[in-house]
């Protein structure tokens, strides 16, 4: 954006600054980005890469809204690289786990990790510890107020607050079972990169 008219560039940067603290701006960013063409999205990312370093806004605030609407693998990877340039996006230390167990022993878990301001990231997993994953979904960014809570239902199963360590241990078993079947780990789970962060050891009570 080096050849952009200064007033327009200032307005753009002011709007980017708002992403760090204004939930409405972040939601609007996702909507606007989602409506752009492929070339427009590439240009947006290029502009973020140029202007982001000079702003006092966490990178996750600039990129996370885009991740919620992007489906192109190459741009998703570009967004992830941008988000993680500040370091790990999600802290497992403050992540909360909900889990429900169905009658057939299959499980649904939601790991809710604070991102910034009023936003959280939610990793949903439907799994069986001895066969692997039925499905995995990553909600890259959503309002904390709309995140799942204990007592909510997912696919008819009541979610209960569960120690994070217990859920992570079950997910480890499911990953092992998945690999035994010769299947890859779902991409969405890889996006929740700090799932097996060493800090979880100090988090047995959450």
């Amino acid at each position, binding site marked *: 954006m080096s050849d952009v008219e200064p007033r327009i560039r200032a307005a753009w940067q002011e709007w980017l600054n708002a992403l760090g603290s204004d939930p409405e701006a972040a939601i609007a960013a996702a909507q606007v980005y989602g409506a752009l063409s492929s070339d427009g999205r590439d240009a947006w990312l290029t502009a973020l890469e140029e202007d982001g370093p000079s702003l006092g806004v966490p990178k996750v605030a600039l990129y996370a809204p885009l991740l919620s609407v992007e489906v192109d693998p190459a741009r998703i990877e570009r967004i992830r690289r941008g988000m993680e340039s500040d370091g790990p996006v999600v802290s497992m230390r403050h992540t909360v786990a909900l889990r429900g167990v169905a009658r057939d022993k299959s499980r649904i878990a939601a790991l809710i990790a604070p991102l910034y301001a009023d936003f959280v990231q939610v990793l949903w997993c439907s799994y069986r*510890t001895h066969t692997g994953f039925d499905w995995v979904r990553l909600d890259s960014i959503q309002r904390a107020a709309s995140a799942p809570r204990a007592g909510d239902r997912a696919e008819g199963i009541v979610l209960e607050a569960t120690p994070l*360590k217990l859920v*992570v*241990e*079950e*997910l*480890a*078993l499911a*990953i*092992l079972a998945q*690999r*035994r079947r010769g299947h890859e780990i779902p991409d969405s789970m890889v996006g929740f990169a700090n799932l*097996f*962060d*060493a800090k*979880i*050891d100090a988090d047995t009570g959450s």
Partner: protein
Amino acid sequence: MISFRVDVDPREVVFIKSLVEASEGIASIFADHGGCLTFATPAARRSALVELLDDLVAHHGARVEALDSADDPIHGGGR
């Protein structure tokens, strides 16, 4: 009691520790340094532990050395 030394990528340590702790009573695990781990288990649980170690070798690039047997690194002894 039998034991194995297991070397893994240090980033895999928490994952592997989670696996062992979720596999009730399969072994005790001790972190020596970095990605160097020691697994210990009663002889009666050897086959279950070896099955897990096979998976770690196949899917996680682990290197395993039996500390109580001079023959085959993983499969030595009473499997």
